[in-house]
């Protein structure tokens, strides 16, 4: 015992407290203790080469996180006590956070379980601890989102059975299949998919629109959640970059494997984000920025810099990133149109954009909006005004990979729907894009298993043959959660509440 202990810096302390905890097992072979970290072909020669992306010991973790939780829950409590939902710009905004709860919260939870899997099954102690920290963080994000949005559930429709809907409702199979895909892959693909492609490359396109959208639209609870989660996200992004560098530095043979995963997960993530594109351009009463602007800022500029950096490892930018860029001026309009068609089967409302909103879209999309989309919305609005609000009664064909209805257009012809197909074991499969077709063709055995909601309805696995039966099976309150915002209970009650408030103010 020493009277004058040596001073340790954070890195040394972390290393001593953590890095030596594991050992080479001998009573059981290492390959049996860690059975999953070799089958993908990733070669790791030296697990100690792992650079800890953040050096957080549990004592510090509990301390910081508890402080953040105390502050966040104080805001959530005060939001509820003061009827914070009355401070939002307009009740149409609430539909954006219905998508957050039903479509994203379960992804946070899936990330929690997925990182637990990887946190147990990678054989190096460094990456394992980093993944475990992310595992528990993701549980935090799922639970704090539930608690933040719980208040909205008390006042608005569409939130009430969010997890049940995640397992069943057609468009929620888009996020679900995305995460199921990552979780059912090997551990290295999982971290590439989630930590790198999603958290590092694309997260600004998910997180920023929702949280800035909340801030712009007076949703103080959600924006506080966003700020509180931000420092966790920063940690997760650092992990994402470290994972990639670690794999690439360990063996040159890893490069093509990682490249293929980056190609796949870029496209998969991008297709998932098309729901966010629609949200940004159509669902926020007060807009933050357009999808095209966000794409330019967060992908074209930031992504270019990132991939320039990674070039020295032999990586190139993801395949089909150029297609995503070609689609930036049409993506949100195409997706909003799909949901406008099928909102009678969705747990949120759509509507005809108001004049000033159409003008905003014209301004943001000068080359495409007036030419291709505005006339469509004008027509739909006329029809709706005449009592013919259009609901598409036919079930849409879905892309086997991303599971979005096949409404996307040809990269070089925005007036023509894009169809691709592959034949596997005498069956024909359909895709919305070359990106989705490639993903299928690489692992057809995986994607033939897809639980495609429309197919399942036709197979009779979704409560019945009638739309009403299916909605019941979804736990969707027909005439309440679904249909146009115009005439919805949300709209009626919001009008009453705000009218009462104005009266009280007089």
């Amino acid at each position, binding site marked *: 015992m020493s009277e004058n202990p040596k001073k340790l810096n954070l890195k040394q302390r972390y290393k001593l407290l953590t890095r030596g905890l594991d050992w*080479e097992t001998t009573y059981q072979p290492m390959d049996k203790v860690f059975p999953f970290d070799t089958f993908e072909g990733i070669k790791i020669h030296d697990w100690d080469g792992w650079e800890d992306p953040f050096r957080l010991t549990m004592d510090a973790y509990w301390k910081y996180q508890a402080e953040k939780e105390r502050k*966040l829950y104080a805001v959530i409590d005060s939001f509820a006590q003061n009827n914070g939902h009355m401070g939002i710009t307009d009740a149409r905004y609430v539909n954006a956070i219905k998508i957050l709860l039903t479509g994203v919260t379960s992804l946070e939870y899936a990330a929690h379980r997925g990182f637990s899997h990887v946190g147990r099954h990678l054989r190096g102690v460094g990456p394992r601890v980093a993944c475990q920290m992310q595992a528990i963080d993701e549980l935090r994000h799922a639970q704090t989102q539930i608690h933040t949005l719980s208040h909205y559930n008390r006042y608005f429709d569409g939130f009430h059975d969010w997890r049940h809907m995640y397992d069943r409702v057609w468009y929620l199979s888009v996020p679900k299949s995305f995460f199921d895909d990552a979780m059912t892959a*090997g551990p290295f693909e999982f971290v590439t998919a989630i930590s790198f492609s999603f958290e590092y490359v694309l997260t600004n396109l998910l997180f920023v629109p929702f949280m800035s959208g909340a801030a712009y639209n007076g949703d103080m609870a959600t924006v506080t959640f966003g700020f509180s989660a931000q420092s966790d996200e920063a940690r997760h992004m650092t992990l994402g970059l470290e994972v990639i560098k670690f794999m690439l530095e360990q063996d040159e043979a890893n490069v093509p494997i990682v490249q293929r995963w980056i190609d796949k997960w870029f496209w998969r993530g991008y297709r998932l984000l098309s729901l966010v594109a629609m949200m940004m351009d159509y669902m926020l009463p007060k807009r933050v920025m357009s999808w095209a602007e966000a794409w330019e800022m967060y992908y074209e500029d930031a992504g270019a810099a990132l991939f320039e950096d990674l070039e020295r490892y032999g990586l190139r930018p993801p395949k089909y990133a150029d297609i995503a860029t070609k689609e930036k001026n049409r993506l949100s309009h195409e997706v909003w149109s799909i949901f406008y068609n099928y909102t009678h089967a969705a747990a949120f409302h759509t509507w005809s954009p108001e004049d000033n909103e159409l003008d905003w879209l014209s301004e943001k999309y000068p080359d495409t909006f007036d030419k291709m989309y505005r006339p469509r919305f004008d027509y739909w609005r006329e029809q709706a005004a005449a009592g013919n609000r259009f609901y598409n009664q036919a079930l849409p064909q879905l892309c086997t990979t991303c599971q979005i209805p096949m409404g996307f257009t040809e990269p070089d012809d925005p007036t023509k729907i894009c169809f691709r197909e592959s034949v596997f074991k005498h069956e024909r499969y359909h895709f919305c894009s070359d990106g989705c077709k490639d993903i299928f063709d690489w692992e057809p055995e995986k994607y033939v298993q897809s639980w495609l909601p429309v197919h399942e309805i036709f197979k009779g696995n979704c409560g019945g043959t009638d739309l009403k039966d299916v909605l019941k099976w979804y736990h969707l309150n027909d005439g309440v959660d679904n249909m146009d915002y115009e005439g919805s209970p949300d709209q009626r009650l919001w009008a009453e509440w705000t009218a009462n408030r104005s009266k009280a103010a007089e």
Partner: protein
Amino acid sequence: MTLDIKTSGVEPRRQTFANVARRLGADKPGSRYDEATLDVQPTENFHYRPLWDPKHELFDRSRTKIGMADWYAFRDPRQFYYGTYTIARARMMEAQEKNFKFVAKRNLLSSVDPAWLDKVRAYLIPLRHYEWGANMNNCLMTDYGYGTAITQATMFAATDRLGIAQMISRVGLMMDGNSGDSLGTAKEEWLHDSMWQGLRHMVEDSFVVDDWFEVLVAQNVAMDSIIHPLVFQTFDAIGINYGGAPVSLLNEFAVDWYADSRRWVDALLKVVAAESDSNRDQISEWIRTWQGRAQDAFKPISEHVLGDGAAQAMDVRILELHARLAKIGIEF
């Protein structure tokens, strides 16, 4: 007299989420624990089978021999979701940090009988690897387990065990003046010293068990119920005779943690055993197997510390476990 603050109230349309209301039997306010826990894990319509385990769905009830009609029959008596968990642990850690400071500032370890301190080093520091093993096992339960009520508790247990492994390491660093030598020695002993091989063998065997509930019983009941009370209570109590109170201060977190862990583990076993005879029998069988191994594995360490008193001390802990499990309807 109460103040009546006027607010422009709007009436809520429902009190809680539908899944919580179904479980509460009525639409009434759900607790934060309930809303953050119940039904949160997906249960059906998974898209693909895991490449790493094509026999199972992503979340699959058949990953354990234990059967439950409803895996949410268990509720954590501590009502831990992420927020309450981290806040509770931050409080414990704050107290523990004070203890570390108190001992370091006054250099209290120098007041402990050197022979005893050497013994503490010998029995305590290699246990950082045991705790790391417990971390891995609880992580596996979180991975393979079914239902958020259980898998969040195992997630918290996993980070708890990492925390305890790190705290034991800090005790080592206090002893070696931050050189890390004590940790290096402890790892050598864990890997090669015959005293530790039974324990390491058992821990490694637990790493290759596929049934997550068996891992839970093996780790959180059978192994822990021998090792934690012996080390942090029995050994500690003997240490008092050698001026070892400062060591107790350094171990306080582990003692409090074990009491806390027992609460949810016992509540879980009670619910699961009450579900069916086959569950009860299966748990008993697992406890018999792993408890027997844990006794044998820990015997050399216990003998090193307690000498002739080791057998009796072990018996006390075994009787304690019998009594504890009898209360929740499990015999072994």
